[in-house]
């Protein structure tokens, strides 16, 4: 147990603590570029992030309410289709819309509004997912008790909404962060944003200092957001246990209104999923494009899947160790650090990692894929932390205690008693980190080893001077690989 506890701290130190410390250590030699705060790129970044967050809140929570609380046909399939866009790299969506829209409308696409639209289609599933679970977790009896005294509108505001709003805000926050750190879409659509500026300093000008300076505004905002999250939403569980089936007439609009709601949901699925996907398929459906994709993309696809699988597994393992040895102190420090990884811009994280792993013996890892995996772990360990935290909260302690009387060692108990009970959460953690890592462009472009780039990066670099059909084929290859990986993990965890 002591060993596990120590191990989980060492993990967090190597993944996040030391790189961030290295960043602070080098603070004096980095000139904070104040002008960056006021630059157009910064304003664009803010605009894109807040627009995406707001729109995702509206669409995601609206759809979630309808699907969780109103009885409609096909809700399961619709819910599944509405979260599906999260499996695709947002960048693909930009490609798809570029292929889809006639040139007259392209001016609209290549603007901050276009970026917001594309990112909303990719990220609103996050809000949808949070909101759906939260709406499901409101006990129907509480709403029905409300209906006995007040009309449905009041019941919704004073009972339903009051209970779910922390989850809605947490989801919106996450979308804000994802949009704020998004590199691919704004770059493709020609809207200058900070993550792009940072990358340019790095990869084109090789100006380490300028890069970090340009990322300071992002870091500052990241810390601010971290503080806000900590103060406002710490209590909001990211994952609720499912509860309650939709029942009776709680929120039961007339058949006409139901038809309209159903049609809007179908429209949403059509616009967010089928339209872009069919555009990609249509573009890619030529022998030459497919051949190009397989020849140029297959090795990097496998590499990317491998990196993400390893990262997902390691972080899930770490979280399991954290909560299995939970008597240790410092859990809030741990979750705070893990959260910082998620909330800090990838450019900042990558810089810290490069600083730290570029010294002494540590530089053995420099230039290997280990650095990339460390980056994924630094950014997404929070997901596995929260998943396993929830798993252990829902565990019946007496089952565990009963096992202690058998005299088996801790590892046997872990294997035979504990793990089977948290198995699906373990795989959920693995799956979440896998999905986000495999789609992570910002970190990957800065940390991938020579000759070892994952497909997200290749997709990004190849789309610059290749025909759209080739990029579309690569994008499809990427989705197929991701979906296969998710399906494997899903069948491992929820059989």
């Amino acid at each position, binding site marked *: 147990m002591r060993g596990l506890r120590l191990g989980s701290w060492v993990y967090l130190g190597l993944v996040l603590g030391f790189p961030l410390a290295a960043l602070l250590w080098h603070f004096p030699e980095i000139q904070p570029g104040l002008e960056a705060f006021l630059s157009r790129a910064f304003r664009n970044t803010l605009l894109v992030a807040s627009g995406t967050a707001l729109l995702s809140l509206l669409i995601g929570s609206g759809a979630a309410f309808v699907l969780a609380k109103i009885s409609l046909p096909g809700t399961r399939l619709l819910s599944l289709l509405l979260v599906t866009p999260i499996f695709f790299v947002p960048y693909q969506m930009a490609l798809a819309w570029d292929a889809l829209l006639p040139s007259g409308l392209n001016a609209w696409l290549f603007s901050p509004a276009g970026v917001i639209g594309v990112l909303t289609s990719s990220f609103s599933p996050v809000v949808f997912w949070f909101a759906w679970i939260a709406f499901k977790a409101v006990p129907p009896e509480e709403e029905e008790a409300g*209906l*006995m005294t007040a009309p449905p509108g009041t019941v919704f505001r004073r009972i339903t909404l009051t209970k779910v709003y922390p989850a809605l805000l947490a989801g919106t926050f996450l979308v804000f962060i994802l949009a704020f750190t998004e590199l691919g879409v704004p770059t493709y659509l020609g809207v200058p944003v900070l993550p792009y500026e940072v990358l340019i300093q790095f990869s084109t000008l090789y100006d380490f200092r300028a890069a970090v300076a340009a990322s300071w505004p992002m870091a500052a905002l990241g810390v601010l957001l971290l503080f806000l999250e900590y103060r406002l939403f710490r209590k909001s569980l990211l994952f609720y246990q499912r509860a309650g089936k939709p029942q009776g007439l709680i929120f039961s609009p007339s058949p006409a209104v139901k038809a309209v709601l159903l049609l809007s949901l179908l429209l949403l699925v059509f616009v967010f999923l089928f339209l872009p996907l069919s555009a990609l398929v249509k573009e890619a459906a030529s022998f030459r494009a497919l051949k190009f994709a397989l020849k140029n993309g297959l090795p990097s696809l496998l590499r990317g899947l491998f990196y993400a699988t390893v990262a997902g597994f390691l972080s899930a393992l770490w979280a399991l160790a954290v909560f299995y040895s939970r008597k240790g102190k410092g859990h809030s420090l741990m979750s705070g650090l893990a959260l910082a990884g998620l909330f800090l811009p990838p450019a900042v994280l990558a810089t810290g990692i490069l600083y730290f792993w570029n010294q002494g013996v540590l530089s053995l890892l420099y230039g290997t894929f280990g650095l990339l995996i460390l980056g994924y772990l630094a950014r997404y360990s929070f997901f596995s932390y929260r998943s396993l935290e929830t798993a252990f909260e829902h565990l019946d302690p007496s089952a565990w205690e009963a096992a202690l009387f058998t005299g088996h060692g801790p590892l046997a108990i872990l294997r035979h008693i504990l793990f089977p009970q948290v198995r699906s959460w373990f795989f959920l953690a693995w799956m979440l980190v896998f999905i986000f890592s495999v789609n992570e462009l910002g970190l990957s472009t800065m940390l991938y080893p020579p000759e070892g780039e994952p497909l997200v990066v290749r997709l990004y670099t190849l789309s610059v001077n290749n025909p759209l059909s080739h990029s579309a084929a690569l994008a499809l290859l990427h989705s197929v690989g991701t979906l296969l990986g998710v399906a494997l993990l899903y069948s491992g965890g929820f059989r």
Partner: protein
Amino acid sequence: MKTLVLKDLHKGFGEGTVLKGVGLEVDRGEIVAILGVSGAGKSTLLRIIAGLEVPDQGQVWIGGELATSGRRLLLPPHRRGIGFIFQNLGLWEHMTVEEHLAFVLRARSKTVDQARIRSTLEFLGLSAHAKRKPFQLSGGERQRLALARALVEEPELLLLDEPFSNLDLPRKKKLHREFLRIREEKHPAILYVTHDPLDVKLMADQVVVLHEGRIIQQGPLEALLGAPSHPIVKELLEI
């Protein structure tokens, strides 16, 4: 005028039929116990009366007004003047005791009658807990909060879904006395579901036995025990 009239209610869920023609009349101030094996459709019946569910066929009249006709909900739940106590209470876990009552009263008028809240809390012995949330209350106090929430509006009709299960005997007897007192002071009709013959003996004027979708017998306890119309009536009522 009857407080509640049910006419020929039918209700099915998917394949199975739960209610197959239920009719019932309840007077002001009358206390009626509904008995039946579990799954007999007792909760479904109460929910249809409350307007939380609609029947496939039949009518619900409340205070002389047609409230439900077939699948059409003519009067929404909050306009039926009904106090409902749910089996698992359905307390609003995010509100304090007094906020529960204020929420009910505010749905009716702009100003909240604080005196009414105080007297209701006093009536049910909850005054000391006004600022607490449900999770800070004991089981009996939670039960009384549900009662206070249902009573604060002085409803004409009280619907109680197994209000006495999960209570120890002293608390059960106390709750019986409370209901009898409520009846003395405010004269609502009370319709409650129970499994326990003791509940029936101690506070029901009328017993209704629901079996296989129909009311198979109805009347005072002694009458039913004297001449049960079906073996199940004896099974349900005899101690």
